[in-house]
């Protein structure tokens, strides 16, 4: 025991290697290994008669990705992800600003918990509760009918609302942290130099907090791309990347599903690399 400890004392690099070996080895093996098998499967095919996966190289699946249906679904999903991300950023800003720069420390603590609780409350139940809200005889119509109005019901518009609701806290928290980090002296300097509220916001606050917004957007964007449960429950019948992939997973055509899954994977990798450039990873 002492001898091993002495070896560690003399060689800090040995300590480092031993610390990293297990976590990085395990994660790289399981996660990168899985992504590797996903990639390989995309080049295989399914025998239409036996239903088994044929382990021979083919580009068949990628030809199917060029179909108008798949392109439409991809664009629809991307559009939804972009709309949700933008909505979250706009809605998150005022509350994040209030939490970070106006509220007293006591209130700040309360507000952080008030934002965190809905974030961690069961995902499925949040979607489910929106089904109750948006239903024909549901809460929203009950409140709106005296005004002669009607809620969006189940469909794309309702789904946009639900996604924005689900991922909003992921946007509020990084923006809050980003705003909190801005030194007050910068805002005072801007005011001293004659920058009024909007100008200071536009030219000082916004550039400083932008990486934090991008950090939040990683989640709003990625979670929208990867979800198939909310579309199924809130916009039944409408196709998104998630449902399409799920429908092909397992029995119907695993290799095709694998090829389809490479699309959101590629989109997210590009998104992450851009986000890293912008400095979003320091704001995570």
């Amino acid at each position, binding site marked *: 025991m002492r001898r091993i400890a002495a070896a560690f004392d003399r060689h800090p690099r040995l300590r480092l290697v031993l610390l990293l070996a297990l976590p990085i080895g395990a994660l790289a093996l399981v996660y990168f290994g899985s992504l590797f098998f996903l990639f390989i499967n995309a080049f295989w095919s399914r025998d239409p008669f036996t239903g088994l996966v044929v382990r021979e190289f083919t580009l068949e699946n990628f030809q199917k990705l060029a179909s108008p249906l798949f392109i439409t679904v991809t664009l629809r999903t991307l559009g939804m992800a972009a709309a949700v991300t933008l909505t979250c950023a706009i809605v998150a800003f005022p509350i994040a600003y209030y939490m970070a720069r106006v509220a007293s420390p006591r209130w700040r603590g309360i507000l952080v918990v008030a934002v965190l609780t809905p974030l961690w409350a069961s995902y499925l139940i949040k979607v489910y509760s929106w089904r109750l809200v948006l239903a024909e005889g549901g809460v929203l119509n009950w409140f709106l009918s005296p005004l002669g109005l009607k809620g969006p019901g189940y469909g794309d518009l309702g789904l946009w609302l639900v996604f924005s609701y689900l991922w909003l806290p992921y946007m509020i928290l990084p923006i809050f942290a980003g705003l909190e980090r801005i030194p007050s002296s910068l805002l005072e300097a801007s005011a001293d130099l004659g920058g009024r509220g909007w100008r200071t916001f536009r030219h000082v606050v916004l550039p400083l907090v932008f990486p934090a917004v991008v950090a939040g957007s990683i989640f709003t964007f990625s979670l929208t791309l990867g979800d*198939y449960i909310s579309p199924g429950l809130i916009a039944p019948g409408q196709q998104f990347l998630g449902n399409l992939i799920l429908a092909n997973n397992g029995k119907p055509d695993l290799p095709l599903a694998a090829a389809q899954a490479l699309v959101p994977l590629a989109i*997210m990798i590009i998104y992450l690399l851009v986000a890293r450039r912008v400095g979003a990873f320091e704001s995570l």
Partner: protein
Amino acid sequence: MPGRLGRLALVVATGAVLLFMWLPISLVVAYAFNASGTQSWPPSGFTLQWLIDGLQNPGLRDAFMTSVGAALAATSVAMVLGSLAALAIARYSFFGRESITFLLILPIALPGVVTGMALSTTYATIDFGLGFWAIVIGHATFCVVLVYNNVVARMRRVSGSLEEASADLGAHSFQTFRYVTFPQMRTAILAGALLAFALSFDEVIVTNFVAGGVKTLPLWILTSFRLANQVALVNVAGMIAILLSVIPVYIAVRLTSDTGAVGRI
């Protein structure tokens, strides 16, 4: 600092957003005690019947136990891997450090359907059976980062000079870890573990791909959506699910008030 009018606008906006975030969740809790057991609004009366039914429903109970088991197993793995990685990142600078952070974030930053498909194709290719352990492995990959983030935030806050002092006073590596480093990490590891538990307990997108026939609580809820006679039980299960994610997170927040590392990642 905004003017009086700006302040008022911010207060109103904050209140509106909080209302928007809280109303739908409160609704499920309200329905869990709704006498008619249906989803019509407004609720018709108060009852504890569904809560009692829910606690006695064998399918719901099994799903609950499966979820607790899987979450505990995934959390244990995440605690070990996350703490080790955090120690390395916080206390050493080396080539490739940035890439390691990237690798740790990847499982939680990539879309759930991608992780689900990746695991599902892998299990199919290497002939690993779907089910409990397939779920645990999947959950562990994205739970690691939660422990890692909490511990790394703590280690950056507490100075490394205490460890150097310990070494100067003649303690060897293990003693320094046992008596100096670990006591400083302890609550951060626990906080990360609580978050990991809550995330695993709630996860359904990836789980659905790897569960085989095994039912976790979220999967039980998902299948019960389609069964009209279980609507009332879904509300009860929902309430349990909310409590079991929110309580650990609340404790985690209290444990890490120094670092503020409380987000989902």
